[in-house]
């Protein structure tokens, strides 16, 4: 660290610790967790995440006095030719906002996971993976912190890949479980491959950037962007669109969203932290961070808006027809990410980031509460009595199937209330957090164009509808299975983070409350004055009416749904084929399989035998055996006799001298 640098506030120099704390957690757990009890392992991991949060808070306080922020160079990284990249951390209002969300929600979910994973590892029959989970979790916080605190695109990319890796590892956490013992591994692989497509896009964008700007450092790139935009607008368009491909992969937008629903194979805390609250918002962050580039290319902005809006609607239609409690939330996440992407595309950065923050609160809450429901359905008590993982037989009832639930309101009251809070916030009911943030996006959309506004409004209606459906199926009515009958509330360690998150969900709206607009003023220091979705009572009224309509419709439809399991979903009665289509995710997976996977597989089958095995392997093996043969013949030079060794030495001298002579 270059101590000679003097920052406007000494607290800024603490920023590397947002990465060092999780790193310390990883190292400690790597070394000691084998000897430690579970509690100590979990405590270490929680403290590591909490340490990052405390640092983020300190940075925020420092920023309130010195909103211009600072760049802290930790080390020089690459310095060859014209490529100069440092390990440098950027402290500004945008990055610190992300740090606070990531580490704050992250810490709460760490605490929740300490309780949740205790049961999860026993249900799945391998308690030794408890520490592995927390190592991966801390690694995720580390990578995410790198991503949001980077001062250049390459360091951001390192974090970007790092969170992708953690996502892969954690989706496949029970890699030998799932249908046929391979479904989880498949889900992990799918997430990895689909993300890879997006990452290639981002990489190409970075190559273009380095090629045209000669730098990957944020300030340098942004400073030179206008001249490049003036000289070669096509380059900037290509750059932003390729970057958008990366965004679509990481933030699960059309057409690369397909991995996120499958990613629910991971343990529930993973779904909450990585696949709802933080990692998937990295794309939104990337667009916001690169707003200088996007605002120079209107065409790219329009693409971003429509990508987000269509994703929001499309995913919402699928969410309506799902029966898996986590799948509904997964499609809802995709849909909400669509809202955010659309917002940042419109230039309403504050609205997008506001929604990102509130969404992190209530979606994490919903996932964790869903996890609580799942544990309740899993009949954990039997586990505690026997306390032997071997004797615990996995219940043959799917604990995530909503058609088997019902009536949990009385069995799990705390979970019910926090779930209700989260669901209403997501549906956009005033005065919960989701209402304000979604409203800002809708307000911005109303200025952007009627069509976009209507699409997003439709998505909002569906959002309210599927959340109403879920509430009804899970918590109201009568229990529809033995497990639901026996469900009980969970332990304090699991419930406590839920209550805290519920508090944030209720109060989150204050962050950018109409009138004060604290977040907007805060982010202006970094993002400049964007399109601000001012509070528009007309729009707010419309959206509120739409939301309530959605909830009430759901109520009407599903109050007809009685306690019988086998009964058809009422919507299927009404819409028939359309509903079946939605339930089967509009057959997108099948479509991809037919037009991309199958032809590729066919092609590789064709190429495998003659080209790969025959030609390429032939050449490779040929060279290999040739080298081996040479090696065998040369090794006989080394015959073990000192006299011949000395002779070789002498021959060497003779050779050198003859070179000197004949030269």
């Amino acid at each position, binding site marked *: 660290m270059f101590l000679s640098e003097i920052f406007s506030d000494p607290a800024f120099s603490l920023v590397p610790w947002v990465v060092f704390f999780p790193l310390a957690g990883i190292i400690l757990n790597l070394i000691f967790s084998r000897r430690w009890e579970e509690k100590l392992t979990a405590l270490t991991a929680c403290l590591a995440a909490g340490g990052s949060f405390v640092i983020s808070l300190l940075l925020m306080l420092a920023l309130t006095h010195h909103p211009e922020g600072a760049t802290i160079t930790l080390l020089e990284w690459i310095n*060859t030719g014209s490529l100069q990249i440092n*390990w440098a951390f950027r402290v500004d209002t945008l990055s610190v906002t992300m740090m606070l969300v990531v580490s704050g929600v992250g810490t709460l979910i760490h605490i929740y996971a300490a309780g949740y994973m205790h049961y999860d590892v026993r249900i799945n029959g391998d308690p030794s993976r408890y520490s592995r989970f927390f190592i991966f979790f801390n690694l995720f916080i580390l990578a995410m912190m790198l991503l949001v605190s980077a001062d250049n695109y390459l360091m951001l990319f390192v974090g970007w890949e790092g969170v992708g890796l953690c996502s892969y590892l954690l989706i496949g956490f029970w890699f030998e479980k799932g249908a046929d013992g391979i479904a989880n591994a498949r889900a992990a692989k799918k997430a990895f491959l689909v993300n890879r497509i997006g990452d290639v896009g981002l990489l190409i964008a970075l190559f273009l950037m380095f090629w045209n700007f000669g730098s990957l450092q944020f300030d340098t790139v942004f400073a030179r962007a206008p001249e490049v935009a003036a000289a070669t607008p096509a380059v900037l368009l290509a750059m932003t669109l390729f970057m958008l491909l990366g965004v679509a992969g990481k933030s699960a937008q059309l057409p690369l969203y397909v991995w996120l629903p499958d990613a629910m194979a991971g343990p529930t805390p993973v779904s909450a932290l990585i696949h709802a609250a933080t990692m998937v918002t990295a794309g939104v962050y990337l667009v916001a961070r690169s707003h200088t580039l996007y605002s120079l290319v209107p065409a790219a902005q329009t693409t971003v808006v429509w990508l987000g809006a269509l994703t929001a609607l499309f995913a919402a239609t699928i969410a309506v027809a799902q029966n898996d409690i986590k799948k509904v939330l997964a499609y809802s996440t995709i849909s909400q990410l669509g809202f955010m992407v659309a917002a940042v595309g419109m230039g309403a950065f504050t609205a997008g980031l506001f929604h990102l923050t509130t969404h992190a609160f209530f979606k994490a809450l919903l996932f964790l509460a869903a996890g609580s429901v799942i544990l309740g359905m899993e009949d954990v008590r039997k586990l505690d009595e026997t306390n032997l993982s071997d004797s615990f037989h996995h219940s043959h009832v799917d604990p995530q199937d909503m058609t088997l639930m019902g009536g949990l309101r009385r069995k799990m009251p705390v979970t019910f209330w926090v779930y209700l809070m989260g669901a209403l916030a997501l549906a956009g009911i005033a005065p919960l957090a989701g209402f304000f943030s979604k409203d800002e996006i809708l307000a911005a959309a109303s200025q952007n164009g009627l069509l976009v506004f209507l699409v997003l409004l439709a998505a909002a209606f569906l959002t309210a509808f599927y959340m109403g459906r879920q509430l009804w199926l899970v918590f109201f009515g009568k229990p529809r299975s033995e497990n639901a009958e026996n469900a009980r509330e969970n332990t304090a360690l699991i419930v406590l983070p839920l209550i805290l998150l519920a508090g944030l969900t209720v109060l989150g709206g204050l962050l950018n409350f109409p009138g004060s607009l604290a977040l907007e003023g805060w982010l202006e220091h970094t993002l400049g004055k964007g399109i601000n979705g001012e509070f528009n009572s007309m729009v707010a009224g419309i959206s509120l009416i739409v939301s309530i309509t959605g909830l009430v419709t759901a109520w009407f439809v599903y109050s007809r749904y009685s306690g019988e399991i086998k009964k058809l979903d009422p919507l299927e009665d009404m819409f028939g084929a359309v509903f079946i289509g939605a339930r089967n995710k509009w057959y997108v997976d099948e479509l991809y399989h037919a037009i991309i996977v199958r032809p590729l597989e066919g092609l590789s089958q064709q190429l495998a035998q003659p080209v790969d095995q025959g030609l390429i392997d032939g050449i490779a093996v040929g060279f290999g055996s040739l*080298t081996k043969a040479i090696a065998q013949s*040369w090794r006989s030079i080394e015959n073990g006799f000192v006299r011949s060794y000395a002779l070789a030495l002498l021959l*060497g001298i003779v050779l*050198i001298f003859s070179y*000197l002579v004949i030269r």
Partner: protein
Amino acid sequence: MPTVNDFLLILPEVVLLIWALLILLIDLWIPDTKKYYTAVLSAAGLVISAGCAFALLGRTGSAFSNMVVLDGFSSVLSILFLLSGLAAVALAYDYLKRNAAQRGEYYTLLLFSIAGMMLMASANDLIMVFLSLELLSIPLYILAGFFRPRLASEEAALKYFLLGAFSSAILLFGIAWIYGSTGHTDFPGIVASIDGGRANYLLLLIGAGLLLVGFGFKIGVFPFHMWVPDTYQGSPSSIGAFMTVATKAAGFAALLRVFLVLFPAEAPIMAGILWGLSAASMIFGNTVAIAQMNMKRLLAYSSIANAGYILMAFVPYGNPVIAQEAVSSALFYLLAYALTSFGAWAVMIALEPAESDGLLLQDFSGLGRKYPWLGAALLISMLSFIGVPLTMGFWGKFYLFKTAVDGSQIPLVLIGLLTSLVSAYYYLRIVMFAYFKPGEPQIQPGRWASVVAVICAAGIFVLSFIPTPVFQFAAQMIMGMK
């Protein structure tokens, strides 16, 4: 008349030598069951000496009427030698115990040899070069045969001694030619004589060629490498590990300084010879390593190839700018190579049972599953050896290749790249055994070798993130050279 200042400038060496003598005596009263005192004492001596070397870092000057100089180059290398010594002590303790060869002389001789290396890195007179070469070699001859009366060890020592004596004689012969040509043995005198046009050019060239042979023997380049596999295999493994790193580094220290200071004008001619030695070493070392199933011999051939890589950057040393770059890259690579090589040797020593002359590659089967830490250390070492991007080994090769490209040695770089590709075959084969073959390797009692392995791997891992600062440190240290 020597002054206190003279002794101050070589304080690390003085401390080390006195310490070595004291250990020799103290060890007489340490019973066989408590030999760890000797090991700890020698480690302490190395640390103290390293402390002195650190304190002198950045100081420059010459001592004993220009016999030795202190500059950044010698300081950095001294620290490298001392750290290698620490690793050799850590590797030796459990290993010697296992082989019932816990004799305190091991540590004394090791310390003597390190002192010789340090003097070699700061020698400023051909006589000094020769004396320090002997000071570093003679203890190593004995250490190579330290497992007397085991035949393999005695054979290794005898071969090393005979060929070493032969090459020393050649080196001395070269010094004589240079003295005959210039009338001086001290570097400033020789340079003045050459610059003044008073030197006999032909005699000088012959002398330079003979010196190159002498140093080439120490660094083990083709065709002066013949002793390397046999000696590494027969010697105690802890000494094999030390020799691959430290002896090579010492040889390079002398080679770089002598050629940079004395023969910059002869570079166009010498470049041809260096080119041939480098290319032959890379090709020969990497190719023959493929045929090896014994880990020690494999590492020996790998060390030959690596000497070729370092020499590659030095081929265009006639251009002063590139020469600076070459020396920095060589120092960087030596550091990377030291960590990587010690890591690999340490994993082997941790597993090597008593009375063995090196593990076979099959003996690593199942390592990754049974001992994940050791397996990971081996994996990192091998990846670094190959030069997989973003490991220390990659950055090391990157700087070497870059220097060679800057010196427009494109064919040599191509040879280097292709042979690196070949080397992946045998390095990855070790990884394959460790991770994909079932087996039950057994860690031998004592944990120091494992500790060294993990530290080296961690060092490779951490430093691979900050190659530029390390490289620039090396570049900054050698600024004052010459």
